[in-house]
């Protein structure tokens, strides 16, 4: 390089890119190493805002209430049910009460896995439901 430049001084318009290349490579390697490709999957959960008024008893639409209590026991309309059978139970109850809306009441002390299981079961059967968390005590 220098020899050639020495020979022809007017041909000196060439830029030495080596230091820049070093930096670019270091940056490239840094970004490759720090890149975290997350692939998470999840459920959307909406809680209705707390109702300021007490619920009206004159609600014309029938309701199916599914309760998951603090000891992870499920019940459908007051009847104790195995958590794995809740979706089936609700299905047969909707046959009796057409157009019933489903309310899923979950104790704040219940386990998260069970709540996701119930909600996923309803989502899978394309059933609309309302989720309510009630505090324990």
């Amino acid at each position, binding site marked *: 390089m220098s020899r050639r430049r020495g020979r022809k001084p007017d041909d000196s318009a060439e830029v030495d*890119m080596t230091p820049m*290349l070093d930096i*670019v*490579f270091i*940056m*490239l390697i840094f*970004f*490759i190493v*720090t*890149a*975290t490709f*997350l*692939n*998470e*999957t*999840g*459920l*959307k*959960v909406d*809680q209705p805002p707390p109702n300021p008024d007490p619920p009206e008893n004159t609600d014309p639409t029938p309701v199916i209430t599914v309760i*998951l209590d603090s000891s992870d026991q499920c019940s459908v309309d007051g009847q104790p049910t195995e958590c794995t059978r809740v979706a089936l139970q609700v299905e047969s109850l909707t046959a009796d009460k057409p157009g019933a809306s489903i309310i899923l009441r*979950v*104790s*704040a*002390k*219940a*386990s*998260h*896995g*069970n*709540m*996701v*299981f119930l*909600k*996923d079961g309803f*989502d*899978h059967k394309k059933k609309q439901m309302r989720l309510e*968390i009630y*505090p*324990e005590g």
Partner: protein
Amino acid sequence: MARRTRIEIGEDTELDMTPMLDVVFILLIFFIVTSVFVKMPGVEVDKPLALTAAEATPGILVGVDSKSKVWIDKNPYELNEIRPILLGLRDENPKAEGIIIGDAGAEVGIVMGVQEIMTELKIDNVIAAE
């Protein structure tokens, strides 16, 4: 012998680095653009299983372990301490989606408490499931 001829070739023909440089720059820009510095919650949890889980690309990750501690960026917190932390994370990255990675044995009250705070702070959120 062989070495000397190689040196001679190297001096005569100059290697054109331009195409390689182009590729390197494109890679560099790709990684800069796609890199989101995600703060991992730093806790191992058993995610609940779900059939309807959809893909999510979260930027704010919150873990809840089976002892109902809330983990953000490798630090454990109580539920009532996380609001300012989430607020800070949201301001850093206002478009980020949040994900709550709750252990299957965590208390619903804690997980949904985190979810409520996220919703109040207008962070789109999902509950992690597999």
